[in-house]
């Protein structure tokens, strides 16, 4: 009952004029950002975070969450119309969305994507409301050792579940952590890693500089290479008859909606996973379980609904550990978490007791944003199609302007703009060679928090690392640490397991 009252209060908070205005504006920007090839929720949030400094934290998180949410809807538009995923989260939407558009049924694909997103979003927000308070209550009992163990587990999930090259993934985590140590040491106050005695390094490297560099500059370079500044779009006729027909086609997608919503939510909670693997897994499982699995890939609405349900559901799921544990569930929530620190908040379970308006305002806004995004998405399809016709050669310089001003604004130092350019270029090169970049962003956000938790734990234990593995004294920290170790060594068993299966098949 308490939860219900808090939720109602949260919904009222999101209906306050400033919050509601920003929510609708955020949904619109999110739809636009998601629809543009090369830009996803993470890019939108990274580029826009500097402009939230002048508004209250609740309004800021509602705005950015709406951008995050809208981008999940918008990604499908370019997947269907251009055959290029608007964001990595909409890659699986191309598999059946594009063939539907080629067959002349683009409206069916776009409606399936919008309704799928709405269902996934709604189910996940309900799950979020139910799970968040009890999880936060458990997390309130966490001290420094448990917090550090959780962070180690967040890093370990990238290694165990990320699916990327293991040394490259660990390198990405470590470079993010190393960059986070630049500046003054928090215990001794000594300057660390001040390259060439440049004073700009004394204030450390703001996570935004890395995030905007990688997800703004780096992503634009990547997309310029892919598209070479051009666009190719399918034809679309929009009328009410088409929309009605599209809704009729959704009757056969109930199973896809269920799989996408629930699987998406739980995959979204895992730090390394997020919306991209959730949508791919949801597509794969729906295809396997479907009676018409052979038709998948040739243009079936269920093939659009499954990933779209999952990516929206996962985006909400990824906010659960962010709010309750202070651990981001996706690169976008890593940036949101960094934003909370910039706004003067302490991410973690204390938010539920110290900042209820912030937490429940955010949860309430997700319900409202879900509704508005569905309406805006379907109503504004013709407008988005016009936007998609903008050649990339025009969009790219505008994004660069936003990156340069966004990189400068937080610290008002050109030093940070230079660093941002460097990270953007390095991120582009590393991404081309399959170095995952998301772990570096997560690490630079979590780095200072992890270091603080580690050093506090070691002071508690008189310098003994045993505090993290003591089942009698710190059982939660120990269990989390053991899970982290399993995740870290898991990739080593992959080739052995494949060898075993191969051997079994041959005998």
């Amino acid at each position, binding site marked *: 009952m308490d939860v219900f009252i808090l939720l109602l209060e949260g919904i009222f908070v999101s209906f306050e004029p400033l919050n509601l205005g920003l929510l609708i504006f955020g949904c619109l920007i999110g739809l636009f950002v998601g629809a543009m090839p090369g830009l996803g929720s993470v890019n939108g949030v990274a580029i826009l975070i500097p402009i939230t400094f002048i508004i209250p934290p609740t309004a800021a998180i509602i705005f950015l969450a709406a951008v995050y949410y809208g981008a999940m809807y918008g990604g499908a538009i370019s997947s269907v119309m251009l055959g290029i995923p608007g964001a990595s989260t909409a890659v699986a939407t191309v598999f059946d969305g594009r063939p539907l558009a080629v067959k002349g049924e683009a409206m069916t694909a776009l409606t399936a994507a919008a309704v799928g997103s709405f269902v996934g979003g709604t189910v996940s927000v309900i799950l979020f409301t139910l799970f968040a308070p009890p999880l936060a209550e458990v997390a309130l009992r966490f001290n420094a050792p448990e917090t550090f163990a959780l962070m180690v587990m967040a890093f370990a999930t990238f290694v165990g579940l990320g699916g990327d090259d293991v040394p490259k993934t660990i390198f990405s985590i470590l470079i993010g952590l*190393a960059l986070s140590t630049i500046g003054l040491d928090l215990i001794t106050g000594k300057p660390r890693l001040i390259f060439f005695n440049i004073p700009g390094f004394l204030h450390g490297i703001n996570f935004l500089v890395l995030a905007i560099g990688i997800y703004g500059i780096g992503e634009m370079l990547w997309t310029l290479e892919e598209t070479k500044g051009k666009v190719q779009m399918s034809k679309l006729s929009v009328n009410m008859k088409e929309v009605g027909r599209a809704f009729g086609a959704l009757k056969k997608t109930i199973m896809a909606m269920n799989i996408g919503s629930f699987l998406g939510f739980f995959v979204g909670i895992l730090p390394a996973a997020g919306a991209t693997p959730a949508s791919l897994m949801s597509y794969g499982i729906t295809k396997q379980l479907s009676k018409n699995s052979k038709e998948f890939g040739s243009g079936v609405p269920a093939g659009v609904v499954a990933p779209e349900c999952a990516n929206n559901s996962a985006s909400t799921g990824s906010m659960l550990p962010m709010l309750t544990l202070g651990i981001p569930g996706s690169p976008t929530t890593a940036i949101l978490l960094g934003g909370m620190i910039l706004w003067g908040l302490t991410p973690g379970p204390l938010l539920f007791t110290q900042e209820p308006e912030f937490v429940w305002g955010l949860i309430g806004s997700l319900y409202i944003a879900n509704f508005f995004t569905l309406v805006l998405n379907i109503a504004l399809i013709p407008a988005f199609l016009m936007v998609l016709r903008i050649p990339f050669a025009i969009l790219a310089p505008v994004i660069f302007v936003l990156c340069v001003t966004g990189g400068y604004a937080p610290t008002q130092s050109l030093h940070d703009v230079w660093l941002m350019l460097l990270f953007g270029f390095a991120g582009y090169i590393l991404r081309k060679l399959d170095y995952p970049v998301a772990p570096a962003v997560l690490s630079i956000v979590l780095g200072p928090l992890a270091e603080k938790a580690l050093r506090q734990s070691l002071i508690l234990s008189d310098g003994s690392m045993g505090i993290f593995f003591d089942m009698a004294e710190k059982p939660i920290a120990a269990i989390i640490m053991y899970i982290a170790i399993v995740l870290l060594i898991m990739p080593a068993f992959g080739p052995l397991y494949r060898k075993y299966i191969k051997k079994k098949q041959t005998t």
Partner: protein
Amino acid sequence: MSVTNKITVKRAEIAVAVILALCSIALMIKSAENRITWNAEENMGAGFLPFYLSLGMLICTVLTIIKFVLKRSPQSKDDSPFIEAEAFKYIAVTIISLVILVLAIGYLGIYFSLIFFLAFYLRYFSSKSILFISVFSLITPVLTFLFFEWLLKIPLPQGISEPLFYPVYDFMYS
């Protein structure tokens, strides 16, 4: 054979791994300017964490190099160009123009630098008319000014062009 064809994925993989290994060593040396030891009696030295994180980075790059030598990574067998010639033009021009933009911001100030950057970029890559490019290149900095200086009250760098903005500030704050 063009330069872009000579830089294959294979060559880029090993070159980047070696550069990252050297950067890791440089970070280790830099970290060692502070105390890198830690034991139960004394607190963790300020250089301890960065040193061992850089050591970890070095080990990862060495593993990447070993995988390359043993041909265990997909990149170690990939002789295709790292970047196609046409795409290289886009990337190179973009990076050079961004570097010139940031250099110009420090001298000319952001608003005038943006005008030149946008005009050049759109003229080079898009087929839009001179009129469109002129209007677009002028409106974007004006909107940027209004957004940052008027709405957010965040001053952006103005370099030698700063005196030109005094009348605007007088108007805004009068």
